[in-house]
């Protein structure tokens, strides 16, 4: 089973950032404070939804068929993600 990338602090729920990166081949380690990319901050189901959406050429109809859900349900899921990304943008600029 693949480990899930934790995006929120388990103690205070704040957004986590990356402290170190390591090369699997030679073991070189890079330390610093790096922000997670915006998409990586979404939860895993939302990330999978976006991946599927891109693979479906951005077609909500194809997504609805694939997920066996109605068109407006899928559109609401997408709008939920858009809202979350906009919120995170607003929080960043403040």
């Amino acid at each position: 089973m693949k480990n899930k990338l934790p995006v929120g602090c388990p103690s205070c729920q704040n957004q986590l950032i990356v402290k170190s990166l390591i090369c699997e081949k030679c073991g070189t380690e890079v330390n610093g404070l790096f922000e997670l990319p915006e998409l990586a901050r979404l939860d895993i189901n939302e990330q999978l939804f976006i991946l599927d959406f891109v693979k479906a050429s951005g077609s909500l109809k194809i997504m609805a068929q694939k997920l066996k859900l109605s068109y407006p349900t899928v559109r609401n899921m997408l709008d939920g993600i858009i809202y979350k990304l906009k919120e995170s943008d607003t929080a960043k600029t403040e």
Partner: protein
Amino acid sequence: MMKNQILFNPFIYIAGYASLGIGIGIILFTSFIAWMTGTHQVGLLQFRLASDTKWIYFLIDHSLNWIIICLFLFLSGLFFSPSRIRFIDIAGTSAMSRVPMLILPLVRLIPAFRSFQAGYTLNLLVLFIVYGVIVIWSITLLYNAFKVSCNITGQKRVFTFIGALLSAEIITQILLYFIYKH
């Protein structure tokens, strides 16, 4: 969970043209059984028993209320939804949410519920209880139809739904009054 969703929110799975087809089928079939049993649906909240009217009036009872509710929900969605809503979703899901309305005319096919003379008060009481359940189920379905089709969130959704439902009910009652008068 899945069973509850099918009973109270099938719109997660069905919307658009599919729901419109099912919904129109339900409205036509309900109107037919209502005509057979003389069960008038006046708006969403009232029913009347009268068997001496033409079939077209039973069709008007069911379709007029659906069209008006559908228009009010669509207008609410246009003003308050953050999403790009589709009329076909609202029309289809709101038509499909009328499925419980079929129960009352079906119950009236049972001989004990056909006519209510003196001494039949218990049967009439049962009919009212059944109708109460039908209304609650229909409103729950309609609310979920609105929720899925319009994507309005929070208290705004509750208030716009109540507003649309009451406005549609009043206009339906007024229009039906004039239709039956002529």
